[in-house]
């Protein structure tokens, strides 16, 4: 099977004798038998650690759960600095979690979580921080400071949790470079290996923001200047 992999300066084609293998199995074989210099990341081999996200034929996948096909073109994630070959630097994207305060700020010990309450943010807490959504999000091309899909999903996880005693503080935090900067294009949802829709979470956060008295800043400027259309796709967002 022939595949091309983006290396430091160029695409390189590898011919590997393998069938019905995951991309990670193929990378392991190249690394140990053909070309020791190839760099990529892996850990669990079972889609839970989020190490092995790459792009295949322009779409984000987990190498350990993608069955590699003849002619595949393999590249690193976008929107993050390249460290080497298929490895990118996640530092900045992960710092979005800190800026967005994705944690339980104040524990409301009175809250009683039932089986039904648990379902409210079960999906959001399945996030493996693989960075696929961040790579797919077009907003970074114009705003590097955007908090981005996984961090905002993380915020919704806590805002929607009855145990969070200060949801307002979270909503305050995500007004700038946050919920209103998303174009609701849905690219993040399409690539998430865990079936999470950050777009949907962002819409819920917008609705919550409105409840707390915040307004879509794009409405105010609509028709105003060059930037104004950005972040607003013409349809109601919630």
């Amino acid at each position, binding site marked *: 099977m022939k595949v091309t992999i983006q290396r430091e300066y160029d695409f390189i084609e590898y011919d590997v004798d393998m069938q019905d293998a995951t991309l990670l199995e193929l990378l392991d074989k190249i690394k140990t038998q053909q070309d*020791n210099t190839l*760099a990529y990341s892996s850990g669990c081999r079972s889609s*839970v650690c989020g190490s092995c996200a790459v792009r295949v034929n322009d779409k984000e996948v987990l190498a350990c759960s993608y069955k590699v096909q003849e002619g595949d073109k393999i590249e690193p994630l976008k929107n993050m600095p390249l460290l080497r070959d298929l490895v990118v630097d996640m530092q900045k994207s992960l710092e979005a979690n*800190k800026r967005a305060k994705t944690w339980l700020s104040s524990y409301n010990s009175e809250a009683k979580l039932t089986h039904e309450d648990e379902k409210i943010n079960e999906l959001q807490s399945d996030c493996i921080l693989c960075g696929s959504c961040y790579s797919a999000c077009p907003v970074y091309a114009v705003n590097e400071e955007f908090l981005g899909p996984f961090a905002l999903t993380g915020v919704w996880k806590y805002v929607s949790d009855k145990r969070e005693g200060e949801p307002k503080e979270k909503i305050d935090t995500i007004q700038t470079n946050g919920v209103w900067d998303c174009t609701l294009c849905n690219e993040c949802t399409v690539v998430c290996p865990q079936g999470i829709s950050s777009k949907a979470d962002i819409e819920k956060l917008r609705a919550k923001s409105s409840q707390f008295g915040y307004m879509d800043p794009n409405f105010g400027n609509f028709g105003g200047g060059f930037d104004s259309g950005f972040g607003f796709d013409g349809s109601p967002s919630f």
Partner: protein
Amino acid sequence: MKTDVLIIGAGGAGLTAAIAAKKAGVDVVVLTKEYPTRSQTCMAQGGINAALGNVAADSIEDHIQNTLKSAHGLASEEAVRYMCSEAPATIAWLDSIGVCFSRTADAKITQRKLGGASAPRACYAQDYTGLKILHTLYEEALKHDVEMKNEKLLLEILTDENGVACGAVVMDIRSGSKESYFAKSVILATGGYSRIYDKNSTNSVKSTGDGIAVAARAGAKLLDMEFVQFHPTGLKNSSILISESARGEGGYLLNSKGERFTNELAPRDEVSRAIYAEMNKGEDIFLDIRHLGEAFIDEGLPQERKLAKLYENVDPVYDLIPIKPVAHYTMGGIEVDNNSQSSIEGLYACGECSNHRVHGANRLGGNSLLEIVVFGREAGENAAKRAQEIASHATASAKDDFLAQEFTQELDFYTLREELGNLLYAKVGIVRRESELQEALGFVKECQQNLTKMGTQESSLRYNTNLIEFLEFRNMLDASEAVITGALARKESVGAHFMAKE
């Protein structure tokens, strides 16, 4: 760089230690060779034990007795009592920082029964228990402003002229340069060593026993390294874990003739040996859950269906799943005292790399996640206390100049790594014989002597994973040596260590 408490490893144990030390009021730095959320802790599915009695009667005393029984007399009763008594408060703490545990209809944390437990005792978050605990700890550490440094590989523990730990040398994986960190106390939380069995292990590829090997080279004592727990149901080709709940819910084990041959609900070591004996007769072994039905499988075992399809090309709703027992958990590790301190003063250890004497010869499912949080906190608090009592930092320079040698690349370490894994599986695995242990030891020693004939093809230092894997291989050899010498010294069969007649 200087800090009060330096923690190496950012899995469940390392992050809990970091939060505890930070709360005690000292400066903390956590290093990991990956990113915190990629640590193996994310892979745990089954649950975390605590005698809450939320769905059926249970008691801390029963938890203690079940744990001691499984340990085959090799655990410390005091340590087990402490861990089990702390369990309910530990779950309450995890709940208070936001872990999304599965709930009962009346708003309690729900529980399920894992092997060896006399009651449903394991709290869980669907089949993502480890993932949700690890991520919540990570977020709590962000909240407390814990300094985390990613992609740094531990090379060496530094000790001052009195033999007291005072820091560590690490390699920054991104640049390939060495960095020294000085600290008043150092905590190792680097995880287990099951990857010495290479592909015959459920573990993350990063569980290469680094912290244990590095600590031993610095003079720390190791304890009970021969105890390696084999999980009966790893997928045959990839060794990816099929959860014990598949058998707990009524799955059968079958041989090639379609016969059941053992009690599926016996302890892990017994089931693994029964499967291994069949395999030695030339049988292929399968897990059969077809009779549980599609609806049940999709609701209760969704990950297992996905993984069986992906890695074995079988759909468990209609097909048998090919399995084999594989290395899963390592009970042995760095010996520590009641304060989680190793035999080197100032060097602490917690989590799977340590041996707090709570698992003895066999760990109970659900007790490891409990251990990493209970003793992670202990290690963090004790290391912080020590740091507060010490006036100033000591410094020392590196002693281990392993990479300064000349490497000739006559031998390919990737080939040897695979050979090591297969050899250990066959000869230092589920059933052991003295002559075979000797043979394996010979191979390990030869590899150790030949390290300079290996080395790496890739010479650039920048993000050189070839070099990282070579350094990990060296650690795997040292961990393997400790496992085999431990096994040779323990003549009688006990728990996970089973000696057969020649």
